[in-house]
Structures are given as structure tokens and as C-alpha cells.
């Protein structure tokens, strides 16, 4: 059993598991932090961005000034943003049989895999994952395609040139594999390969293993996966949450008794408690708006935004914000708000019960109804007519490199009355803000990451008790910035096995058993013999029939009935007489008693030596060795068959036969 690790990002995993002749890809995350190296794509012509000076080498050589621009001491690539794909060279991805998706954030690289690697298998995911994943992809494609950029920079990627660049460009990894965004056509094609599944549904893969999605509590339709055969169980935990937010609670019980538990997608900000961060978010929002400033919240169109809107719904009256407009701007804003209301079966119990009242499960419906929350596909069109300040704007993309958020950063960045509040934990806010410097706007960082923290992980592991834990290397040591925080790492026994990008891990367990079925008529013919109370054995002579990874013992073909002399002769030629079966032996040999028996039968000078695997009994006079091990006994004597047979019979006395 092997695990191929294709992504270095612990929360955007992409691993391939080889297990019992199947090749299963676990998640397909896309690392978008690479886009932070690029200049933002402004929706409206930005004189500031277009007039940034080109970057030149120390010696004044300016051959890169078309590709690289300088802004407040940072250098950015002036080109269409590119993404860092999962490793494609480590394993032939056309051999992947299935891809299991655990949540909509972990499927963003799917089109690159399904459309460009010869992949012919099936993708499994829950319905909300697919629908919201589609929205995220659609938004991404839309953000990038609606601002076409003629230029595509590639000179800087040359290894010799990259070395000369300033950080962080100099240190960017695998730049040659960075790719531009996929198209809508590729998205549609990739999504067409998905087969929908429900929680606890058992899916057979080639008869070899069974995979089952379990609720992980993190997002609508998010799942952990169980991959099991008859005798082995691998759990894949990715992006789980124990907090009571909107999704169905996490199913922990089903993770018990795993041989291996692959643990990814823990919180990215282990020191920030989501409740505290929501409080921080609300307080800062209220303070800004009270002073006449605007609030910008860069966010994804689904996920935490539902919880934030719910929290604001309860908060705005108490904070006297009832008259402040809330705008949600995204090409998929409308679909996202509406989808959330129709996936009742995937929601937590409280929200499910609302549906029977009937009431919309999320209170943002009421915010929309009362006109407190308005949503628009983009800043163009209706929005520009309705726009009123001060206001609160939720819009993408959290990287601040594309999407409507770029426009608001340019618009509001110059005033210290305004505030940008970062709630998504995926991007470093300082790096995200770099191309907007100098910035007068206030910045508040309150990342809300509801995924498991280390205390929760340690409780979870204590409860489900897997034999082995496998996790990204980042989780096995404290965060570099807080090296003394020993509580911010996985602490389990035996220690977790860690992996990093492009590593192949041999998982630490051997398969010992395989299940074989016995046909009923064969089973009927068996005559069990009790060898110990409660344990009976029977010998079986049968034909092992293996098809589709299922093994069946069938009765052996019967010899044809004797009809004529000739035929009988031929028949007897065809089917050789079964040899008389030697009895099967069982039991163990008690060495002391065996030695006594030997002495009783006239062997003197018997010596016993202990070995690693058992014992050696030495008959010095007879120059004979008897090697007794757990599963075999050897009598080594020099061409004295008589002696060997005698000794053999003595050995056999201690064993049971049947």
C-alpha cells in the first residue's frame, strides 16, 4: 500500500493511494497562492497599476521590464495569473481509477487532471460539493476571462533568470509547471465525469475495495472517506469541523478501527478561535461603519459567508446598523445564496427542522427580503445605480488579484475611514495587500477557519484510535513562527508519519488476509473436526475461482462416470488419481517434554539451544539437528533415513493430525 503525495499544501491536498490493485486519487486541490506573485487584474482601467515602473536588474539591464513591475519595493509579474498544479510526474495519472472529492475547495484542480492527463476513471463527490464547486470554478473562470490580458510572461521563469530575481519570485517553486486558468468548457467536461454520492453510501470499486463518504461537518456536502476491504480500513480525513455551523455534524464514529488514517485539512490558523474572530469581525465592521467608512470583505462566494451573514443578521440591530446596505458581488452570488437554501438534507439539524415549518434555513433570505442584503453579478450594471455609502461589500477573490475586490481596493484604499477585513485563511493578508501599497485603508485580519484544531484532533485520535496516522509534514512540528508551541502539532502514538510534496510513502501495514467464499455445495461436504474447544477444522479440496477481485472456492470437477472400457482408460489417463492426502498437522512442540521423550527413547546427550525463531535440539552423538520453529520443524541428519523417520514419529506424537 502506497501513498503518492502530489501537493505540498496541507489544506489543498492531492494524494494518490494504491490499495489492493486500485489507484485512488484523494482530492484534487489547487494551490492558488502562486497568484500572489502577479499584478492584480483591474476591472476598470487603473492608472496606478498601468503606470507602475518596470523592474530592472541591479546592473540596469531592463530586458524584463515588460514582464515584471515594481510596486512599493515588491516585484510582480505583469501577466495573466497562473496556478501551481499538483505534481503530474510522480505517477502516471492515466492509471488513476477514481478520484474522491471531500469538499468544494479541494476540487479546483480537477479540470487539469481529468482533461490533460489521460484520466479515464470516475470522480465521486456529493451533490452540494459539485454544485458549489462548479460555482467556485465558474467564478474563477469569469474573474479571469472578463479581463483579457494580451501578455503572457514566460521569460522570468527561465531558471537562470529566476535566480537573479528578488524574493519571493526567486524562491517560487516549480514555476515551469504553473498553468493559466482552465476554460468553462474544460470545467464542464471535468464535472461531467463526476458521479454523485450520498453520505454513508457504499460504492464498490472493482470488487476490491469499498469507498464511503461520511459527513465531515466543514461545509455543505463536505465529506471524509472510508476506503476499506474485508480486512483493511483506511480513513481519509480532509477538512473536518466539530463546530456547530451550518453543515451536518461530523461523523466520527465511523472512523473507528482504521488501520491507517490520512489526516489533512486542519485549521490553517490554529491560534485563532473562530468565535473570537467572528466577534472581532463584527466589532471592527461596526466601528468602521459608525465612523462613515466602508467595509470590504474579500471572500469566496460560499462557505463562511453564510455564517457571517447569519451572525450579522443577529448583530446589525444591536449595533445600530440596520440602515447600512450589505452588498454581495459575485458572478455566482445569486446561485450561491439560493443553492444554500435548497440543500436541506445536508444541513445541521436546526436548519433542517426549519425547512419543515416551512422557513428558509438560512436567515440571509430575510436580509434579502428586507433589502438589507443585495447581491449583484458584478460592479457593472444595477450595482452602480444602487450603490450607497457607507456600506459593507462581500466580494471575491480573497487573493485580491482578480475579481471585483480589485476595484474596491483601488476605490477605497486611499481613505483611512475604510477597512478591509480578511476572513478567508487561504492567503497571507500582507502578501495579498502588497501591490496596493501604500495603503491608507485600515486592515483587519480575522481569519475564520472552522476546521479541526490540534486539541480537537488529539481528542479525535484518542476516540477513533487508528493504528497509524499519516499527515502532511507541517502538522508534525510547531508552526515556524511559534516554535515553542508544542501544543500546535499532532501528538499521537505511534508518531504520525509525515509526507511532503512529491514523496511516495509506503504505508506501514501488510495485508494478511483475503476473503474467499465457499460455494454452498462445497461447504456441505466439509466435515469439521474439533481440535480445540470452539475451533474446528476441515480440509478442503476445491478449485479457486478468481474474477473481479472476488475469490470463490468451487467444488472440484467430478471424474466422468466410467462408461466404456476405452473411455475409462482415457478418463483415468486424463484425471490422475488423487494421491492419498497426508494428514494436516497442528499444534506446537513443548521442547522440555520433547527432550524427555528423546531421552526415554535412548537418545542421550541432548542439548537445546534457543534461537530467535524457536529452538534447536542437538543430538550430539547422532550428529543430528532438530530445528523447531513456530511454523516448521526440520530434522537434519546425515543420510540416516531410519533415524529421521524415528525422530519424525517422535515429533508427530506431539502434534494433532486430521
Amino acid at each position, binding site marked *: 500500500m502506497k501513498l503518492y503525495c502530489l501537493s505540498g499544501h496541507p489544506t489543498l491536498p492531492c494524494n494518490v493511494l494504491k490499495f489492493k490493485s486500485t489507484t485512488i486519487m484523494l482530492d484534487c486541490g489547487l494551490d492558488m497562492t502562486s497568484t500572489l506573485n502577479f499584478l492584480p487584474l483591474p476591472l476598470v482601467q487603473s492608472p496606478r497599476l498601468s503606470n507602475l515602473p518596470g523592474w530592472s536588474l541591479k546592473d540596469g539591464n531592463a530586458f524584463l521590464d515588460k514582464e515584471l513591475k515594481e510596486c512599493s519595493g515588491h516585484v510582480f509579474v505583469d501577466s495573466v495569473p497562473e496556478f501551481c498544479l499538483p505534481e503530474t510526474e510522480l505517477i502516471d495519472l492515466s492509471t488513476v481509477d477514481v478520484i474522491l472529492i471531500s469538499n468544494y475547495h479541494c476540487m479546483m484542480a480537477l479540470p487539469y487532471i481529468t482533461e490533460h492527463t489521460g484520466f479515464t476513471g470516475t470522480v465521486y463527490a456529493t451533490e452540494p460539493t459539485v454544485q458549489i464547486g462548479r460555482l467556485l470554478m465558474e467564478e474563477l473562470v469569469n474573474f479571469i476571462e472578463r479581463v483579457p490580458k494580451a501578455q503572457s510572461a514566460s521569460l522570468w521563469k527561465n531558471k537562470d533568470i529566476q535566480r537573479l530575481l528578488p524574493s519571493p519570485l526567486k524562491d517560487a517553486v516549480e514555476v515551469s509547471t504553473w498553468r493559466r486558468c482552465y476554460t468553462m468548457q474544460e470545467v464542464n467536461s471535468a464535472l461531467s465525469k463526476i458521479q454523485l454520492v450520498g453520505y454513508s453510501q457504499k460504492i464498490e470499486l472493482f470488487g476490491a475495495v469499498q469507498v464511503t463518504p461520511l459527513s465531515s461537518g466543514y461545509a455543505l456536502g463536505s465529506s471524509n472517506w472510508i476506503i476499506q476491504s474485508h480486512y483493511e480500513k483506511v480513513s481519509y480525513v480532509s477538512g473536518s469541523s466539530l463546530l456547530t455551523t451550518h453543515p451536518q455534524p461530523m461523523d466520527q464514529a465511523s472512523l473507528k478501527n482504521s488501520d491507517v488514517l490520512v489526516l489533512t485539512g486542519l485549521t490553517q490558523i490554529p491560534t485563532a*478561535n473562530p468565535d473570537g474572530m467572528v*466577534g472581532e469581525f463584527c466589532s471592527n465592521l461596526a466601528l468602521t461603519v459608525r465612523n462613515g467608512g466602508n467595509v470590504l470583505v474579500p471572500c469566496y462566494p460560499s462557505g463562511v459567508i453564510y455564517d457571517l451573514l447569519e451572525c450579522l443578521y443577529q448583530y446589525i440591530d444591536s449595533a445600530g446598523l440596520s440602515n447600512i446596505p450589505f452588498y454581495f458581488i459575485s458572478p455566482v452570488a445569486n446561485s450561491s445564496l439560493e443553492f444554500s437554501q435548497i440543500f436541506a438534507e445536508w444541513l445541521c439539524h436546526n436548519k433542517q427542522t426549519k425547512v419543515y415549518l416551512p422557513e428558509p434555513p438560512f436567515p440571509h433570505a430575510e436580509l434579502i427580503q428586507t433589502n438589507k442584503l443585495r447581491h449583484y453579478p458584478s460592479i457593472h450594471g444595477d450595482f452602480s445605480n444602487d450603490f450607497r455609502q457607507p456600506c459593507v461589500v462581500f466580494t471575491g477573490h480573497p487573493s485580491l488579484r482578480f475579481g471585483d475586490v480589485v476595484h474596491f481596493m483601488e476605490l477605497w484604499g486611499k481613505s483611512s475611514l475604510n477597512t478591509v477585513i480578511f476572513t478567508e485563511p487561504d492567503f497571507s493578508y500582507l502578501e495579498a495587500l502588497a501591490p496596493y501599497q501604500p495603503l491608507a485603508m485600515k486592515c483587519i485580519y480575522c481569519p475564520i477557519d472552522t476546521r479541526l484544531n490540534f486539541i480537537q484532533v488529539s481528542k479525535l485520535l484518542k476516540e477513533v484510535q487508528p493504528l497509524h496516522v499519516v499527515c502532511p509534514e507541517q502538522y508534525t512540528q510547531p508552526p515556524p513562527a511559534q516554535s*515553542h508551541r508544542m501544543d500546535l502539532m499532532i501528538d499521537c502514538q505511534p508518531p504520525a508519519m509525515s509526507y511532503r510534496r512529491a514523496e511516495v510513502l509506503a504505508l506501514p501495514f501488510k495485508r494478511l488476509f483475503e476473503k474467499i467464499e465457499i460455494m454452498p455445495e462445497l461447504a456441505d461436504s466439509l466435515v469439521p473436526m474439533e481440535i480445540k474447544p470452539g475451533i474446528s477444522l476441515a480440509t478442503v479440496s476445491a478449485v479457486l475461482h478468481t474474477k473481479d477481485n472476488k475469490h470463490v472456492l468451487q467444488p472440484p470437477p467430478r471424474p466422468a462416470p466410467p462408461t466404456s472400457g476405452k473411455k475409462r482408460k482415457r478418463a483415468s489417463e486424463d484425471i490422475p488419481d488423487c494421491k492419498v492426502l497426508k494428514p494436516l498437522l497442528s499444534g506446537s512442540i513443548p521442547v522440555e517434554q520433547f527432550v524427555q521423550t528423546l531421552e526415554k527413547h535412548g537418545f542421550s546427550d541432548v542439548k537445546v539451544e534457543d534461537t530467535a525463531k524457536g529452538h534447536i535440539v542437538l543430538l550430539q552423538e547422532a550428529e543430528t539437528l532438530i530445528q523447531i520453529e513456530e511454523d516448521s520443524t526440520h530434522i537434519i541428519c546425515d543420510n540416516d533415513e531410519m533415524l529421521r523417520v524415528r525422530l519424525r514419529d517422535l515429533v508427530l506424537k506431539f502434534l494433532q493430525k486430521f
Partner: protein
Amino acid sequence: MDPECSQLLPALCAVLADPRQPVADDTCLEKLLDWFKTITEAGSSLQLLQENPCLVELLCHVLKPQGLSARVLSFSLHLAGVFAAQESCFQYLQQAELLPGLFGEAGPLGQAAWSAPTVRSGWIQGLRSLAQHPSALPFLADCGTLDTIFSLQGDSSLFVASAAGQLLVHILGLSLQGPAEGPPSPQACDWPVCAQKIVGHIEGSLRSMATPQVTQALNVLTTTFGHCHGPWMQVLWERLSPLVACLLQEDPLPAAHSLVDLLLSVARSPVLSSSDCGLWETLAQTLRRLSPAQAGPLALGILKLQDCPQALRAQAFGVLLQPLACVLTAADQAPGPPGLPEGTTGDSVTVDTLLSSKSACAGLLCQTLAHLELLQPLPQRPSPWPQAPLLGAAVTILRFCNGSAAPASDVGGRLCAILAGCVRVQRAALDFLGALAQETGPQELVTQVSAVLLEYLRSPDSSPTVLKKAFQATLRWLLSSPRAPGCCDLDPDTQLFLRELLPVLRKRLCSPCWEVRDSGLEFLTQVTRHWGGQAGFRHALLASEVPELAEQLLRDPESYVRASAVTAVGQLSSQGLHATAASPEQLGGQKESLLAELLHVLSTDSEGFPRRAAMQVFTEWLRDRHADVAEDTEQFVARVLQAASRDLDWEVRAQGLELALVFLAQTLGQPSARCPYAVAAPQATPPGPLAQALRALSRVRLFEFAFRALFDCDRPVAQKSCDLLLFLRAQATPSGGLQEAEGSPDVVPVEAALQRWRAGEQGEPLGDLEPEAVLAVLRSLDLEGLRGALAESSDHVEKSPQSLLQDMLATVGVRGENQADCY
């Protein structure tokens, strides 16, 4: 006993003795017992029994198998004990062979009813009441009673077990206090039989080394040394202390907590503390022997003792400081924690306890911090008090808890992992840090305290309860900060701290969590109350947005927050720090609006807390002659009283009377509002100004408000009104009869209204009242009598023994009828 009760008693006894008539309510029996106790305390029990033979008959029923229900049985046993408390009655019952029957083998002890805990409890209570005179001792010693009590110490019912222990203490005390003069002989054979048996039992238990028995014995001894003070205590301790010392050799130590209690009880006993008796050595040995968590309470107890050897105190203090020393060592690069008393180093046992589990670590640290917090204000606390290391430890613990400490060692790293985010320890450490504000420390440490408090106040991860504690600790440190030398304003460090603090407070007032908003407002109120006059504070506060936010919270959805906001805004306004006071051009209009806003709260808020807070603010404003109020005091008082009189919350109405009283005192020229009820030396007020004053009271409708309140359905309101009117009467008619001469005012409408209100009707408002009429009514009312009646508890009419007996009979009667209906 009055004849009515005597008449009812036989019927009641018959009912109680009838097992078919179950008594519904235990409390009736308890009340009945209380009544019998008061009767027997006042007179002769013997006479009572002789006059009421039904009582003896009831007791005789106990002797019959299946005679009584468990409750009545328990009651009867207890009652018998109450009667037998008097020696004459004891003899009488003895002669009737009732007592051996009730408390001996023949009684309930041998019956099935004994399985009911209430019967066992009644048996013990009976004996406890009975054992009041030396003649009871042979009775207790003879018929195996003591053995039963010994076994009841391990009873499954905790009440029974504990009562059994106390009974033993009582009997021991009674027998050793006996007629013998001087201290009893240390020779056991000279002691009374009861004492011999009990002490023998205790010795046996202590020798047994079995934890339950040892615990029982230690508990009995603890109570004995806590309650008995005879000279024989010393003899007892000399006899038992070797056995107690033997316990210390055991591993594991049995009943460590009880042992600590005993040793402290012995040490506190006035009989023993003067002489040593090897006690100090035992205490020192015990301190060494106990685990860190067990030793903490003992160490605190030792340090609280008035006189105790210095070496032992030093040892105890060292034990108490151990966990903090470990924490300091774990965080510091330095080899040992500086400033702690010599010999206080984190020993390995304490370190092991701290690292053994999260709960053990939190438990030990919380206990240590709480103990030191208790010790800190005591005069007998150790001196020199290690203020600096304690401050350092508190700061370090808080830093471990929020993950900002840099551990110096492996132990530190593990402590950090254990304590990170531990709310319990955070709360305890903040409390302790607050307590340490009584004294200052080195400037460097004070700066660290400010920094860590700001960290906690700022951190989004601080839970609401932790935040509340952080605010409280901050307040204590702020208020203890030194003034700048040579001027009365805040020192520069405090000003700097305030500049950082106010933005945090501003953000906390916007928190979505109501507890946080509430704590923030409470903090604002307190700090303004103390520092409202400091220019530095005023300047910083007005420059922040905090006053505006506080005013906005008057409309908060949570009533507690609204109440706190009312108090805060009221305080700000009192100090001239109200939000709009900063803009002089709007001064008049805006000021009016705050008063109007608070009046609005008072008359419309759906919850009681904000309305009560508003009344308190108004009272304070009136008392301090707040500018808004001074503009037109009469109109202000009239409006407030009008709103308060309609309020459904009695506390608001009572507070209204408080405000009325302040107004009264101000109007009638009584400058000392501090003690308005002091009617002893009223000053003669000239009639002219008095009439004016009374008319002013009439204009604000104070009389009507007070008279109405006199018949309020809530007793505290009526009481307060009664006091107010008594004060008024004393003030207004100092020499008596001054106004009477001026003709007869028309009191009819007032008295009619009073009648209606007394009857519980709402009635029409009275309109303007003639002061003379009011005074006439005041004179005619029996206010003293009313005050007396109100001072009685509300059930004083129903509490009479006669009504109790009637009630009990009535419930039985009803039951009978119901039964008849059923068949």
C-alpha cells in the same frame, strides 16, 4: 400550651398514630417539632406530658410492630428526645420503660422500618436532643446505643452518617465535661464509660488504617477539637496524637484531606495552641508528606494561624509557593526564580503533578492562586511578602495560557502545551493579579502587567468570562496607579496605558457577545466614577468614541446591557463626560435629550433591570444636584415619581421612595441625607418655609406616591413608605400640634382614597393635596403600628401553632373525604 391547642392535640396524635392516615407533608412535622421545642424550653416537659397523655400514647405506638409510618416514627423518636432533654422527664420516661423501648434493641432498631434513612436520622436526632444531662450517659452506655452509633457513622445516607459523627462528638463532650473537677486523668480507666468507649472506638479506627474508618475517626476528632474547649482536650490529644503520627508513615496516606482538617482544627483550638504537644512537628512532617495538591490547604491553614513557629510558617509558605516557583523556573533562563524565599524551588514532585495531566495542572495552579489571594490581605501573611515574584508568576501563567510565553526548558514547553487556552487558570490568574494591585512592584513588572492585561483585553480569543476578569484586574491596577508627583493628574505611564486601553474598550463595546458589552460598560462606569475628575482621563475619554457608544447601547437588545449602559451613561453625565457635552453649542438641547432618554427607558423598557438602573441614576443625580436636575428639580421629581408609581417592578417603586426621600430631605432642609431615619433630634423648622416645602412636595405628588406605596402588595415597598412618612411626620410636626390650631382641614377625600388603596383598588389620582390635610392624615395614621406589622414576616398570621394543628388535621380530613368518595 394554650387551651385551644390542648384541645386539638389528642385528635392530632390519634391521626399520627393511625397508619392509614399518612401525613402528607414532612415540613408540618418539622414545624410541630419546633413548636414542641419552644414549649419545652419555656416550661416543664414532665408537666406537658402529664397534662397531655395523648403524647405518651403516641410514643407508645412506636413500640408496636408496624405501628407507624417511617415519617411519624422518625418524628416520634425525635420528639421523645426533646422531652427527655429535661432530667425529670427523662426519669419519667425511663420509669415508663419508654426510652429503652424507643432507642434500644426492642424499638425501631430491630424493625423493618430501620431501613428507612429518615427513621435512622430521627433516632440519632432523638438521642442528640436527649443527651443533655449526665444521667443520660449511663443510658447511652448501657443498652448498646453507642455501638449502633458507631456503625451509623458508615451509613449509606450521608446525612445519617454525618449526624452520627456529630452525636459522638456531643456525647464525648458531655461525658468528659462531667462533674469531675479539673482535667481528667490520662489513664483511660478513670474516664467515664461513654468516653472510654468512644475514644477506644476512635483508636481502633485509626489503627485499622482502612480509609473509611480513618476518615470517620478523623472527622469526629476534627469536630471535637473545633467545638469543645474543655481542659480534657489536651489530654485527649496527647493520647491520640501518636496514632495520628502513625498514619503519616502509611503509604498511600489514608484520608489525607480529613487529616489536614484535623491538624488545623487542633492547631486552632485555644486549649492546645498555647502548649506544643508535638503538634508543630506533626504539622511539619505532614507538610513534607502530603502531595502538592493536598499540602496547599494545610499550608494556607498554618499561615493563617495567629501564633506558630516561624520555621513552620516558612516551610508552609514554601509549600504554597512551590507550583509558582516551578512556573517561574520553566519560563526563565535564570537558574532559580529570583526573589522567592530561600528554599522555594520547584521540586520534582510538584513538577510531575503539574505535567501529569491538564486537569491536575489547572487544579493545582488554581488552588495555589486562590490560596495566595486569600492570604494576601491578611495581617498575619508572611513578611516580607514576595510581591515581585508573585507578580512575575501571575504574568508568566497568563502568558503560558495565551501562548505568548517563551519557555526556557522542556518543562516549560510542556506546561505551555498544557495551559494554552485554559480558561479556568486564566480566570484564577487574573483574579490573583487583580488582588496583587493592592501593592505595587518594580516598574519593569508593572509594565509587564499592563502589557499582559492589554493582551488579554485585546485578544479575540479571550472568552467573555476571562474578559470580565481582565477588566476587573485592569480596574484594580489602574486605580492603584500612582499619581504623578507634584500634581493631582495621572502619571505618564497610566496615561499611555489609557491611550491604548480606550480603543480596546471601544471595540469591546461593539462586540456581538452581550456579556462582553456588559463587562465593558461596567468597567467604564467604575473607571469614570474614580477618575471622572482627572484631566488626563477626561481628555482621553472624550477623544475616544466610547461615550457615544455607551449611549448607543441604551438601545441594546439585551436588557442587562441596557441596564449597564444606563448606569454608565448616568455616571458619565454626572461627571460632565456625556457624549454630547463636548459640543457646547448643542449643550442645552442635547442635555435635555439624555434625561428624556432615561425617562423613556424608565417608562417604556420591557425589562426591570434597565428601569431599576434608571431610577438609581436619577436618585444619584438628585442627590448630587446634577445640572440637568437642578434646572427644574420639581418637574424632574414629578415625572420620575409618576413613572415609578406605575411600574410593575417593586424594586423600581422602592427606588422611587428612595428618590422621594432624598427630595424630602433636600426640601425640608435636612442636610444630612445620610441618616434620614434619625428622628431622634428633629430640628424645629419655621412654619413659613415648612408650608412652602410641603406645598412643593404636594406639587410633585410625593404624598400621593407615598400613601399609595403604603399599601403596596410588596412588603419592602410598604416598609420603605412607612419609614418615609414617619420621617416626614417627625420633620413636619416637630413640636406637635403646631398646624392643628389652624382649623380643620378637609381630610375626607384623602382618607377615602387611603381606604380604597388599602382594599387593593387602584382608584383615581388624588389631585393637589392641601399640606394641612396631609399632615392631619399623617397624624391620624398608626404608622408605628403599621411598621411593626410590616416587620413581621409575611406568614406570621399563619404561623401560629393552632393554625398548624388545624392545617394538619384538615389535610387528613380532606384525605378521608376523598377516600370516601372513591369507594
